[in-house]
């Protein structure tokens, strides 16, 4: 084995590198951020003083252990921070990189583990492009890594653990949300309780968080529907409908929205890994075996970029992918750990399946968005224009993109991909997996042209 490369230094990347180093390798380790650490366990820049307990709450122990490994591994690898991998050429096993926003480079690999993470999954609705509106993840990053709130009286909209967690973090920081709007019915979550016992500690933490929010005095509504974000050049209110179809207007100074996560899997796509639609997760995910092996020679996937599992699973999957890489190349690897990780990953998959059922993506809300809503915020393409493309014979997403420019902008469909697919599928009267997904294009993020 000559060169092993790990892309990403979040929970999956850190645990992958740890196993490679244990086996005596010195991998090239690339991360887009200057310090690594990923998103859930992102560290603030130098100068901030909050300790791990203040930053990560119940995850403090796990975050501290991850950071300790991250810092211990950096000098034992060829650590390349502030480096974007913007293309992959699987036939020559080459990565094209951009360091510091300007320095182009190429990295060859014999084996590669991609740990590229995830981004919030959103539903566009009127007003969502206005200043003051962020993703739930964005609202969290603002608080965690910058100590700022997106507002002092925000409305938080979405579903899932991140919604509740963000609300509690904002309450603690002194920016009490004006409203927490959960699109999921309480009973939907309640029915999945038994499945959530596959990870009892995490489930109980979730229940405790839910109670804390209900006792906080913050208005928390379930089975509700966001209608519009109001304001001219700044957010002033959110208009929404309760479960009894009654309309309300809640004044606020910011809005965060998010319905779970979607894999950042563009590099796997460019490498030629086939994708499957995961109906539970409602995401397109790159095909891999339970250890992270793909059909592309030398390529392994781990963490949320290989299908959403969360930070805890990402750690397990990162280590597991590295052990698979080592075993496949007849290098020393921890056989006992491999067995342990396989067991844990199987259990966690059951937990995740229940979580996905408990907090579904509101596909119908996306599919039925009003014609005038900008489904694509980069190119400002309305849902109506996308529906017109459907009527003009665009049976799948890439044709619809060519017709309408949906997904052709600077984010390359990261945000509009899932909701646009719902709109197109609904317009064509087919299931969402039948309209496919936006194909990845290099560069996976914009780079300067020389």
């Amino acid at each position, binding site marked *: 084995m000559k060169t092993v490369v790990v892309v990403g230094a979040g929970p999956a990347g850190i645990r992958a590198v740890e196993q490679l180093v244990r086996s005596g390798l010195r991998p090239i380790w690339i991360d887009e951020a200057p310090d690594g650490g990923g998103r859930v366990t992102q560290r603030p820049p130098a100068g901030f*003083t909050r300790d791990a307990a203040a930053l990560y709450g119940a995850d403090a122990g796990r975050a501290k252990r991850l950071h300790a490994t991250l810092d211990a591994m950096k000098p034992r690898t060829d650590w390349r921070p502030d480096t974007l991998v913007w293309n992959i050429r699987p036939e020559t096993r080459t990565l094209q990189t951009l360091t510091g926003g300007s320095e182009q480079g190429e990295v060859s690999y014999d084996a590669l583990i991609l740990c590229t993470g995830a981004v919030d999954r959103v539903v566009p609705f009127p007003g969502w492009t206005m*200043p003051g509106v962020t993703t739930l993840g964005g609202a969290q990053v603002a608080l965690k890594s910058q100590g700022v709130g997106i*507002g002092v009286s925000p409305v938080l909209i979405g579903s899932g653990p991140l919604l509740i967690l963000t609300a509690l973090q904002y309450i603690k920081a002194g920016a009490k949300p004006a409203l927490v709007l959960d699109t999921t019915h309480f009973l939907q979550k309640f029915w999945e309780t038994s499945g959530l016992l596959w990870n009892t500690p995490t489930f109980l933490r979730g229940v405790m968080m839910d109670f804390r929010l209900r006792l906080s005095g913050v208005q928390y509504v379930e089975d509700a529907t966001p209608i519009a974000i109001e304001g001219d050049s*700044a957010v002033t209110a959110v208009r929404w409908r309760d479960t009894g179809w009654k309309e309300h207007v809640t004044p606020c100074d910011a809005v965060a929205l998010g319905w779970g996560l979607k894999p950042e899997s563009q590099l796997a796509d460019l490498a030629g890994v086939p994708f499957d639609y995961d109906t539970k997760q409602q995401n397109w995910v790159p095909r891999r075996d339970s250890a992270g092996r793909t059909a592309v020679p030398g390529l392994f996937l781990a963490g949320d970029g290989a299908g959403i599992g969360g930070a805890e699973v990402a750690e397990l999957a990162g280590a597991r992918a590295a052990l698979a890489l080592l075993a496949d190349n007849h290098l020393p690897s921890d056989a006992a750990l491999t067995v342990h990780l396989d067991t844990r990953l199987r259990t966690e998959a059951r937990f995740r399946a229940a979580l996905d059922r408990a907090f579904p993506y509101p596909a119908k809300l996306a599919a039925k968005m009003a014609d005038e809503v900008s489904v694509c915020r980069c190119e400002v393409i309305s849902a109506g224009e996308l529906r017109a493309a459907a009527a003009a014979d665009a049976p799948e997403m890439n044709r619809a993109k060519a017709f309408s420019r949906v997904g052709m902008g600077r984010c390359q469909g990261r945000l509009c991909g899932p909701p646009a697919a719902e709109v197109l599928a609904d317009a064509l009267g087919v299931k969402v997996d039948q309209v496919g997904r936006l194909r990845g294009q290099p560069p996976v*993020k914009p780079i300067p042209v020389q």
Partner: protein
Amino acid sequence: MTVTRLVDQDRPALSFTVDGLEIVGKQGDTLLTAMLAGGLTYVRTSEFGDGGRAGFCWMGACQDCWVLVEGSGIRRACTTLAKPGMKVIRR
């Protein structure tokens, strides 16, 4: 947009300019934080006439917070740390 400093703000001040206007931020601020907490209501203008934008994802994915930094070109405000004396231009 009322990005507000809430916690962990005991850091040295630094100043830079945006469109020639002085903005006072703090060491460790990203450009996005410093600009929005410093009183600006947007960081870029949509090319399609639908108004100002002030980022969205805060994590380098949506590309909706691009600014021009003199000497280093187009940068994402959410992943670029503010430095004293920087000259930023909104587009």
